[in-house]
């Protein structure tokens, strides 16, 4: 491998990092654990860069490494009890104008209630920007499986967010009143 290839590898890795890190936060529910996971992933990826085929999808390759690393660590340690509420409210209160919206925290809580396989499926397809086929490759399952997981995740999130009451969300009180009337409550 020439030095130019090395630089290209690093450049592509850097370009994928924000997205990879957001995926790690989604999986772990915590920024500190997510960053440890990203660090392990970078080291693995670096050590195995000869096994990466240049010109293929590096983002998908990195996501696969991170996902495998996450599940193998989880199997080793067992999943710890998470204080997601506290961590995220603390995290998001730093920039209230940007992240402090109550609905985002509620959404995070709902996301955490999903089974792992459904959560990763809806994140990969709905947020990280992967096609169903790519998500299936990353998760090592059939495309149909990913589709049904995404669909179940959506339904479950709807249920979870539906019961928490739209009236709690946002400043749009006028709309809440209209909704309340429309639903005859």
């Amino acid at each position: 491998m020439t030095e130019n290839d090395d630089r290209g590898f690093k450049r592509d890795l850097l370009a994928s990092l924000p997205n990879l890190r957001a995926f790690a936060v989604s999986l772990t529910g915590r920024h500190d654990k997510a960053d440890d996971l990203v660090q392990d992933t970078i080291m693995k990826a670096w050590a195995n860069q000869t096994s990466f085929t240049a010109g293929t999808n590096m983002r998908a390759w990195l996501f696969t490494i991170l996902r495998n690393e996450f599940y193998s660590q989880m199997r080793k340690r067992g999943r710890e009890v998470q204080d997601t509420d506290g961590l995220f409210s603390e995290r998001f209160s730093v920039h209230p104008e940007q992240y402090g919206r109550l609905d985002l925290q509620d959404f995070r809580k709902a996301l955490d209630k999903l089974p792992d396989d459904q959560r990763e499926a809806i994140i990969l397809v709905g947020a990280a920007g992967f096609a169903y086929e790519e998500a299936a490759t990353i998760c090592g399952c059939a495309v149909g499986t990913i589709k049904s997981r995404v669909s179940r995740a959506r339904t479950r999130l709807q249920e979870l967010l539906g019961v928490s009451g739209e009236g709690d969300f946002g400043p749009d009180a006028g709309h809440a009143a209209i909704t309340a009337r429309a639903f005859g409550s």
Partner: protein
Amino acid sequence: MSDDNRKKQDMTISHQDIRPGSMPPNASISRKLREFYDAVQEEGIPDRFLDLLEKLEDAERNAKSVKVK
């Protein structure tokens, strides 16, 4: 059911046209999902990863120059 009809109509509106609070449940979930995800992405790359990559690069360079000698 007028509510159902309204929801069906809303489903056909593109994402850009959807105002907060007026969207069907699925669009609302997609929007929140991206909002949550983008908030993390926009934090950028923490310094520890830039440092790490630099160290990995240095280590590799050193290993190569040892081999050459």
